[in-house]
């Protein structure tokens, strides 16, 4: 089981300060929206429409020009952030395991948000919701957050993002930004799940994890290929040609994730598990990568 020790917490704290200095990161940024009231100074005016609060009518303009205009406020809505961690069987593969990387990222994102006084909830999913932490708030809940993330274990069901998104959307709870940390190996495709989240009022963001060996598999000749998620096995003969096609297909899969997110305006960060934690942090925070790229 992954443990977040004092060194990890120190690292997270340093990163939270860096995030604050940068004024936030794209993954955690809340969109500024027009609010009816409650966000301090008004930022504009618009025509009055039935249902507007009388207190927000600009009576001064009405007195001078006879027009009824409502004040418009801009700000961020108080909506909880959700971190959805894929814990399907495929996430247990790799060295380090993708699930370990996902836990590390979830812990970091949650920590930074909690320290920034945001409400954060978490959910571990595969083909179902495996575990859930309702939104927590305040620095006192950091321990609870980390304990939850530490206890996420690999589930034996295949990924079904659409099913989980559907269950999440059908709830009566408040929607908010939803960061999906997953390898996106969903046999039905990752697109319907992300679209469902968007339609349900959630603002999906994607942290896509992949193991470099998935793109460059070390197998040739007669092998028994076993699907980690479904447990099925096939006797196949992998030729050089099939291997070339597979590599191209995997590269196209990575591109398809980037392109889909780009088309939808979704923030997407693709992380290789072979990179160092420092490199993950840099990519998550949007900092330039180091030249040598070596492990520290």
């Amino acid at each position, binding site marked *: 089981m992954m443990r977040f020790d004092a060194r990890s917490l120190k690292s997270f704290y340093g990163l939270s300060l860096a995030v604050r200095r940068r004024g936030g990161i794209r993954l955690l940024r809340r969109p500024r929206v027009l609010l009816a009231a409650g966000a301090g100074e008004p930022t504009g005016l618009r025509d009055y429409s039935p249902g507007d609060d009388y207190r927000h009518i600009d009576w001064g303009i009405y007195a001078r020009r006879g027009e009824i205009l409502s004040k418009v406020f801009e700000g961020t809505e108080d909506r909880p952030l959700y971190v959805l961690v894929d814990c399907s069987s495929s996430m247990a593969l790799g060295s380090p395991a993708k699930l370990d990387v996902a836990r590390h990222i979830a812990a970091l994102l949650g920590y930074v948000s909690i320290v920034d006084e945001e409400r954060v909830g978490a959910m571990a999913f595969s083909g179902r919701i495996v575990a859930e932490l309702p939104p927590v708030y305040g620095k006192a809940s950091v321990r609870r957050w980390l304990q939850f993330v530490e206890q996420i274990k690999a589930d034996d069901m295949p990924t079904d993002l659409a099913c989980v998104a559907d269950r999440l959307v059908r709830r009566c709870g408040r929607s908010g930004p939803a960061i999906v940390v997953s390898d996106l190996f969903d046999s039905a495709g990752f697109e319907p799940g992300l679209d469902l989240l968007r339609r349900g009022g959630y603002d999906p963001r994607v942290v896509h994890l992949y193991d470099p060996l998935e793109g460059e598999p070390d197998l040739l000749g007669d092998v028994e290929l076993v699907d*980690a998620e479904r447990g099925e096995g*096939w006797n196949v003969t992998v030729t050089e040609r099939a291997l070339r096609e597979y590599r191209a297909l995997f590269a196209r899969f990575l591109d398809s994730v980037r392109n889909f997110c780009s088309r939808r305006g979704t923030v997407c960060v693709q992380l290789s598990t072979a990179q160092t934690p420092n490199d993950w942090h840099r990519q998550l925070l949007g900092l330039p990568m180091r030249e040598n790229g070596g492990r520290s």
Partner: protein
Amino acid sequence: VTEITFFYPQALYALLLAVPIMLLYSRKASRPRHVVATSMLWRQVLPLDNRKDWRGPMSLAVQLAILALLVLALADPRAKPTAKQTPSSPQATASQTSLNQEDAAVQAIAGIGLVDITPAVPWSVRWFGALAIVILTVEWCLYQRCWMT
């Protein structure tokens, strides 16, 4: 009931080649297990189905059948003549040990190809070796799948 004998019974030792054939086949049939995160990409590259692959066992059966046929051909099976049966052909007399190679008449018959008087051991050893080399080479190629790379 006609009893079958072999003119070159030493050739039956070639049946031992079935042992390395089966060993190589079993080694080839045991595939290394490779766990992949998902099969959805492999499915687009390779035909993944759970139908039993009959080509392997069929290949082994064909190889063993060919080996058996070759060995039987080399051993030269013949019907053993009974005591009442009189020799009806020069070939039948050739299989009997009473054949005297010094007999001038037999030498004459052998000269026109009706009787094989070649000593059995050198002939069978020669063909046994050739057969072993050919079969083992083919087996090794099948095992390595040298045509694929």
